[in-house]
């Protein structure tokens, strides 16, 4: 064995190289404060390892980026851990960079003769942030899409060449394939290559000038191998341990709903380390924007660049440290402010929750459909009643109706409802409430309608009068009949949730139907029900079924339904407010017909 290594050394000189790499002189002995550079090198190595495997499973296209990330994350074994490590290591690199930077500043290691190495370090900081920024868009989810749009719009503010620069970065007038291919080439190719070049220079210059010892020396001098390296590896172990804990705790990195330019995303935020800049921009009005986006950050960067030169003169070092600590304080303050504002903003919270639901739903649909159609994951959501139903309800119905007391999407209504709550419409429970003298006149049912509050000179509707005047004095037998009729009418809807009880109560339903048509409780006086009779009240044949709801929504003022007595319910089909596709989605959602 030794002979083999001897031969290898004779041909390559690897022992000399290893000695050169490991026999670094550490004046004053190994110290914990020297570990940060090594942890960053380690972090970058982790990003390369995980990044390259992610790359092997990534497809940079507007209809394949989210889809391929979904596949990596949800289908490939261990994919969520891989992506999680890549994501959380990127998060952790920023504090590691700050620690490394602070150590260099406090120990004065940025001053002559190490100016160039300090500038390399600043370059590495910039590159790391640029890699994070370009990586944020790649999953092509709502968050990455809308936050990166802000960044590319900021680019258009660069004097003289801004518009052209923006066009080059985006690759087209709108976001699309070309944006992803460019961001991906930057994220995985150009920027990491530059990063490696700068790291080589950074380490070479570090070795050339040697370590800046923290004085006074506490211990005798030591060697990098193994003393300092041991501490470095303990630190690296802590870093990867932290990352794995975060991956486990959050169950990997988030993958939100697929990017949709037509679906406004009210929770567009950059990654946490850009939140200070995000908050900063709020303070600049109108065309002063450029001060917040370019001028002041640019000046800060120039000041950082000048620090080794400033550090040469008497109080320069102290001035630098003062600036650094004030800057860090400002960064922390702005970041805290941004997060506090969001935490207190219920609109923001609702948007985050909505995006999370959509993301989970998209992943769920992709999994249960055994794949995503070629048009991409957006098509899955566009045809999903559970996704579109609540939105349609909120935009079309919630100006009058509620759904379980809310607007369908979970937000409260600003004004009291003027029409019934439609959660569970057509179910036995809903109908029992409707026929309840205590409930019919509440806002949950007809409390807000003209049926209860007629125009001057009018009367309450016949139905309301029946429920409030006659039902309370029903005999026990009549009450039992009413229950049977309710069950029969509810069965018309054939709600998926009632499938079993409808089947087991077939006899009861049959009885109810007979009672209805035999006019036991005056129902047939007004309502048509599985017969050719006609009356003033809405036709209850197929009440609450898909076909009944479709016809009703198209024109509630039709003779078959409310006729002239229709309150304010619009004829959605007549005026084209709802396309047949949307109508179908809304109805299926209301009926609880959402497929898994």
């Amino acid at each position, binding site marked *: 064995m030794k002979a083999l290594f001897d031969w290898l050394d004779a041909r390559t000189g690897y022992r000399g190289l290893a000695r050169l790499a490991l026999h670094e002189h550490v004046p004053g002995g190994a110290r914990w404060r020297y570990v940060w550079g090594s942890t960053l090198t380690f972090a970058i190595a982790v990003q390369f390892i995980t990044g390259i495997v992610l790359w092997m499973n990534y497809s940079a296209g*507007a*209809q394949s980026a989210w889809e391929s990330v979904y596949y990596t994350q949800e289908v490939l074994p261990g994919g969520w851990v891989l992506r999680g490590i890549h994501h959380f290591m990127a998060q952790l690199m920023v504090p590691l960079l700050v620690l490394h930077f602070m150590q260099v500043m406090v120990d004065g290691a940025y001053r002559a003769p190490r100016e160039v190495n300090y500038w390399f370090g600043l370059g590495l900081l910039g590159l790391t942030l640029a890699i994070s920024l370009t990586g944020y868009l790649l999953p092509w989810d709502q968050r990455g899409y*809308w936050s990166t*749009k*802000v960044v590319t*719009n*900021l680019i*258009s*503010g660069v004097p003289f060449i801004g*518009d*052209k620069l923006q*066009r*080059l970065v*985006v*690759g*087209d*007038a*709108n976001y*699309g*394939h*070309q944006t992803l291919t460019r961001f991906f080439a930057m994220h995985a190719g150009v920027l990491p290559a530059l990063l490696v070049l700068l790291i080589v220079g950074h380490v070479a210059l570090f070795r050339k000038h040697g370590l800046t010892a923290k004085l006074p020396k506490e211990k005798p001098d030591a060697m990098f191998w193994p003393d300092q390296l041991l501490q470095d590896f303990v630190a690296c172990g802590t870093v990867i341990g932290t990352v794995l804990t975060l991956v486990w705790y959050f169950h990997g990195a988030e993958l939100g709903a697929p990017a*949709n*330019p*037509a*679906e*406004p*995303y*009210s*929770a*567009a935020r950059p990654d946490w380390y850009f939140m200070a800049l*995000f908050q900063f*921009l*709020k303070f*600049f*009005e*109108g*065309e002063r*924007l*450029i001060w917040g986006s370019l001028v002041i950050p640019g000046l800060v960067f120039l000041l950082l660049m000048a620090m080794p030169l400033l550090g040469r003169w008497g109080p320069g070092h102290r001035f630098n440290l003062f600036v650094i600590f004030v800057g860090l304080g400002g960064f922390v303050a702005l970041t805290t402010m941004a997060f506090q504002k969001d935490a207190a*903003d219920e*609109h*923001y919270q609702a*948007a985050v929750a909505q995006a999370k639901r959509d993301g989970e739903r998209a992943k769920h649909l992709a999994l249960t459909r055994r794949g995503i159609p070629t048009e991409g994951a*957006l098509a899955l959501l566009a045809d999903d009643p559970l996704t579109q139903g609540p939105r349609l309800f909120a*935009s079309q119905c919630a*100006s009058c109706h509620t759904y379980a007391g809310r607007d369908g999407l979970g937000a409260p209504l*600003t004004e009291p409802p003027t029409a019934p709550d439609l959660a569970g419409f057509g179910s036995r429970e809903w109908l029992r409430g409707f026929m309840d003298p205590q409930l019919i006149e509440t806002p949950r049912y007809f409390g807000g309608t003209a049926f209860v509050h007629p125009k001057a000179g009018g009367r309450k509707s016949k139905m309301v009068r029946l429920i409030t005047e006659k039902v309370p004095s029903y005999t026990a037998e009549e009450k039992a009949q009413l229950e049977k009729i309710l069950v029969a009418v509810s069965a018309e809807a054939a709600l998926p949730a009632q499938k079993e009880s409808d089947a087991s109560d077939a006899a009861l339903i049959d009885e109810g139907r007979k009672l209805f048509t035999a006019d036991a409780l005056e129902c047939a006086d007004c309502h048509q029900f599985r017969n050719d009779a006609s009356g003033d009240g809405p036709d209850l044949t197929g009440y609450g079924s898909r076909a009944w709801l479709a016809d009703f929504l198209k024109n509630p003022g039709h003779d078959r339904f409310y006729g002239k007595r229709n309150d304010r319910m*619009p004829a959605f089909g*007549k*005026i*084209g*407010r709802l396309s047949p596709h949307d109508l179908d989605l809304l109805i299926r959602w209301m009926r609880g017909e959402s497929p898994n």
Partner: protein
Amino acid sequence: MDPSHEPENPSPDVPSAASGDRREFLKSAACLALGGACVLAPLAAGVTVLLGPLSSAPPDGSWVNLTKIEALPIGAAPRLFQVFVERTDAWTRHPRSAVGAVFLERLDETSVRAFQSACPHLGCAVEWRKEKKIFFCPCHNSAFTHDGEISGPSPAARGLDTLAVEIRDEGEVWVKFQTFKAGVKERLPIA
């Protein structure tokens, strides 16, 4: 110089200083020129393709039919409509591609107002906040009145972007969907 008289290991300082300097200079210059020329071809090809997006046609927006005028009750709050257009994204042709969203509001019997939902500040989508009757951008808190004007101190440099509206036969509401440059006072179409 006859090559046969050349020493085995020519040392650079053998020829006279003046002619040697010139030779060295010419060699270095030729080296740089040739080296430069070698990379010029791939560089030029690369830069040409890289700058490709700059030569695409100037934007002109596209007319889309969003709804019917009867579907917009007079006095109702502005309503958001998703916009789908036929679009070719690089190599993919989409018959119906989601490109943005527009707020529509019926002003009177015959007219409809359309606002681009992209915030003129930095392009996030503004929301209609019904409780305050303002348009609000959830990114940097730009606020706009019901009429789209800047409301109070606001990061946006201009009011919401109005889009051209035409009511065509049988009350179809057609909107010219355009995107405008962010962060500036003027309304400059970019897509």
